């Protein structure tokens, strides 16, 4: 059961979540405002068959940079297929690798 704000990605992106302009719009108008209110957020990928790294990067990189990696305690990724799940994992790990570089 997901509580908090549910953001249906497919509704805006279509079944191929590729367009990073759309990702930016979701981030700016829905994701970041919800996180600022300290709400839990579910990014719902049901119906999304495929996503680009660019889309996921544009969606979650700025919140991770702005709120810290702990923001992932407030965000869940819902109904991701194998491909989308892998791309999310790549981007999330990449952001933390980047942190390591800056720490050293």
């Amino acid at each position, binding site marked *: 059961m997901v509580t908090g704000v549910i953001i249906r990605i497919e509704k805006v992106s*279509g079944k191929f979540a590729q367009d*990073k302009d759309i990702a930016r719009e979701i981030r700016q108008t829905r994701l970041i405002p919800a996180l600022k209110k300290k709400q839990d957020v*579910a990014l719902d990928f049901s119906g999304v068959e*495929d996503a680009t790294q660019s889309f996921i990067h544009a969606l979650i990189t700025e919140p991770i940079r702005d709120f810290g*990696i*702990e923001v992932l305690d407030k965000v869940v990724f819902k109904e991701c297929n194998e491909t989308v799940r892998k791309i999310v*994992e*790549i981007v999330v790990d990449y952001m933390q690798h980047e942190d390591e570089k800056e720490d050293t």
Partner: protein
Amino acid sequence: MGNMKIHLPNSAFIGNIDAFIAGFDPSEPGKLEVTANKKWLSVHPVVLAMVAALGMKVDKAKITCEPIEATSGHYLVRMGLYEFLKIKPPHISEHESAGRFIPLKLIENSKQLSEFLEDMIPALHLPAEQAKSIRYVIYEVVRNVFEHSKSKQGAILCAQYFKKSNTFRMAIVDTGIGIRESISESYPTSTDLAAIRLSLTPGITGTTKRVGGTAENAGAGLFFTKSIAYINRSFFMIYSGTGFYKLHLRNASKPVRFLNADPFVDKHSERDDFPFWQGTVVAVDISLNSTSEFQTLLNLIGTVYSGGVKDKRKSKYRKARFV
């Protein structure tokens, strides 16, 4: 004063493209002279995309295209070259069957790109895994044109399936500022080849000095594209300014265990003395014989792109949560 000259040879694919590029003469950019092999034309879509890109920059009246005598010349008509150059095509009595191809297409904005991918890719009837790779490459490279090239023309795309080799070959070309000028906004480089090397390195983008990019730009598009070709055991090339990089076919007998972040570690050839191309040319082949699944590709990309987070047990480390 001479003309800008480009000659369509009897054969030019990524594997042997060097001679075609070396013969390109950009010395008089206001005029374009197109010549072709008299007997046979069998060329990669990148050749047509380059000619089309040059033609778009030149006044129609200043383009001369000698009559194509080769029997396979109808290929140029079918791929839309004459239409693109706005010159009258030769009379064609016989057409090949339609096949699976994308004629020369100008994509000027992200809306057109999305519509194109929605409509065109399914129409090619490609296997699902390879269709994913092709869609991915087209999206990433065309977006690069919009975001980095400052091209007034947009991106010129051309692609075709080649039955004999069971390969889908595609090209994306622009006549913008080129990689060196774009990437030098954050990473000043002394040569076009050095700029190409940086552009293929994950995390490097001209939009910021910060490794990892900006909120909208990860600096990963070309790295993903080259990696797709590498895993797929296919050719990839990029040409900008005088710089040229070509990824060669990897050894088929060795399974891919990791990807190199530095493109120069891969089996490749490079040049930094080619005739100057104002803009960027990218061409990729996707072998449909490859059994590599897109998921395998992502697993390998994940390893190098994230650099292997050193200690996933540390308290700060977070995994994405899936429900």
